[in-house]
């Protein structure tokens, strides 16, 4: 009887005790604010006024808000291209810098990783100096060589492309490290067997590397998706969401509505919708990529 109690403690209570600090932090800083946010989304509330319950009015207004839907579609476009390019680019980097076959590989790894250590504000300022229309380095060089300036940040499409490319540049190093970890966990025997069987590098990649890297790729894609949906500082510093609404994402709109227009309740409704969107995209990713991932 005593043994069963002890077993119960080791198997159920002890893990819960170890998880407790994390659970407490998660509840205090994530669950409670999320519930508060949901509650606020049903109110009309300014920073200096008392909240008034208005039911679903904020959500009704949200569905007719053209600016919100523009930022919504911008967020989808930005996230889709950023996540796709980040995943492919960081996978390429990881494959290239995984085998210790290139001279200076460790230095290269560090060089690619450094941007992810920088604050996004620093990255944004640096790239604004590079891409700026009048004061930018690239346009200065182009005009010095007799070429035409390129409107990197004042043309809507180019501005969107610029923020996507800079986001990929800034984030790739971080995901590269995760993928290198995944690659190094694949047993070498599988590659040796494939070589003996005469498999081409492409076949080896498609039939061994990719399937066994699926769970790591899923992690990378989920993390990149969440981070791209929350992107703010880099874009604000580079374009302030412009020109016009061309690069304005939901997070910037939430900030503007909450703190500049003083509509906390309406901004909370936007946040709830953003949270649902992130949740939905993550579930879809898990469904698509997570299928048949257990190869061990």
């Amino acid at each position: 009887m005593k043994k069963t109690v002890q077993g119960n403690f080791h198997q159920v209570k002890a893990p819960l005790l170890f998880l407790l600090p994390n659970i407490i932090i998660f509840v205090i800083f994530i669950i409670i604010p999320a519930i508060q946010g949901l509650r606020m989304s049903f109110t009309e509330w300014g920073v200096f006024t008392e909240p008034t319950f208005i039911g679903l009015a904020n959500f009704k207004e949200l569905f007719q808000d053209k600016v919100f839907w523009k930022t919504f579609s911008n967020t989808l476009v930005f996230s889709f291209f950023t996540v796709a390019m980040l995943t492919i680019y960081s996978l390429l980097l990881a494959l290239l810098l995984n085998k210790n076959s290139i001279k200076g590989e460790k230095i290269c790894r560090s060089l690619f990783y450094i941007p992810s250590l920088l604050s996004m504000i620093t990255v944004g300022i640096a790239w604004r100096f590079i891409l700026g229309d009048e004061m930018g380095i690239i346009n200065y060089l182009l005009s010095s060589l007799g070429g035409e300036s390129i409107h990197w940040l004042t043309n809507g499409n180019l501005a969107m492309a610029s923020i996507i490319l800079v986001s990929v540049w800034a984030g790739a190093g971080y995901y590269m490290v995760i993928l290198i970890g995944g690659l190094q966990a694949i047993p070498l025997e599988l590659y040796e067997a494939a070589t003996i069987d005469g498999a081409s590098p492409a076949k080896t990649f498609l039939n061994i590397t990719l399937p066994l890297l699926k769970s790591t790729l899923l992690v990378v894609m989920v993390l990149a998706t969440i981070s791209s949906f929350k992107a703010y500082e880099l874009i604000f510093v580079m374009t302030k969401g412009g020109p016009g609404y061309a690069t304005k994402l939901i997070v910037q709109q939430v900030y503007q509505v909450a703190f500049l227009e003083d509509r906390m309740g309406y901004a909370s409704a936007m946040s709830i919708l953003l949270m649902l969107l992130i949740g939905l995209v993550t579930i879809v990713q898990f469904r698509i990529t997570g299928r048949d991932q257990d190869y061990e």
Partner: protein
Amino acid sequence: MKKIAVILTILLLATSTLFATGTKEEGTKDVTLSVMWFNDANESDVFMNTIDDYLKANPRIKVDLQVVAYSEYDQKLKMMISGGNPPDVARISTNTLSVVVDSLEPIDGYVADIERVKQEFLPSMVAFATNKDNRLVAYPTEATANGMLVNKTAFDKAGIDLDVVSKTWTWSEWETIVKKVIAANPKMKYGLAVDFTPHRFSTIMYQFNGHFLNADQTAMEFNNKGTIETLNWFKHVHDSGLIPKSVWLGSENPAELFQAGLVAGHIGGSWNINTYNKNIKDFEWKVVNMPKAAINSSVPGGKFVASFKGSANKVEAQKLMAAFSDNAHNEAYCLDTFNLSSRVDATISYPSNSKDFEVFLSELKVTPAYTANEWKNTNLSKVTTYIKEQIVEVLLGNITAQQAVANVDTKGNTYFK
């Protein structure tokens, strides 16, 4: 018995410490005032230098200065106020004042004669610093105005006498003149940079007889002939390459473009005198009267110091603000920051640029009073970002000026309900 004696001793010690603390608070305890500041140039350093003698004379007063970037200032201040933890003293611009006015501690409870205090400052600044109950809630420090700073060297090169042409020029005359200036200066690409803010846009809007609000300020009235005319003119000068698109469409800093000699003029605030004085070495610059449209106008503004209803050290905060705003301190501060004083009795001899200050003051004198009243309106402050976005939409050609003003009125009026 022993236990009871120990408990009693502890209680006695605790209460005596408590009372001792209470006595100390009333007169001799050190007070650290939390002061929040933002910089246009070097104002936080000058502030500390200016109040140095006050702090030496009051050694128990310490200042914990927190300098916050202006772009984050409003948000941080609002969060501190709503969180019940406002600073003891904060530097506040007219824009911020309209947002936090109801949270500011009225000054009349801390001075013997509030009417005398009001009379010490420019009436327009007192109007900004007065709440809806007509109580003064902030000490005005600097008066600011929007104006035109121009590259004199470039105009000279084009053979244009700025002093002559800028006396009575109109915006259409300015267009002809500035094209000549650009032609005569190969490095110069544009005629004018206008700060990416609705405040600076409104300078031109008021000149075109436009406005944001109706006469009694009960509703938005952006949809008016003057504003539509301004929007169309603003788009025209962007499209014709006289104004760089990179400022309003790409967030490039107009002051940097001016300092780099890429634009002939800059419509900005009077505080730019300080920045340009320090940074521009390659060419001569000066302040000139802005061209006229229907009328001449600037936009008045200012900076203030204020304390909050929830501040922890209101009495000491008010004493510090009163000292900082007296004639001697205010003159010293405005002299060192190259700013116009808000005091009526200030006589500041600037080591340079005194003529530039005179131009800003002359622009203020012809500015209609409603401009200040509009910018003091709390509801207008909530819609200014949207106004900026709609102006950009017009510049991009996505919507017409008529659609933009209608959109602004629709959205803005939700705040006036």
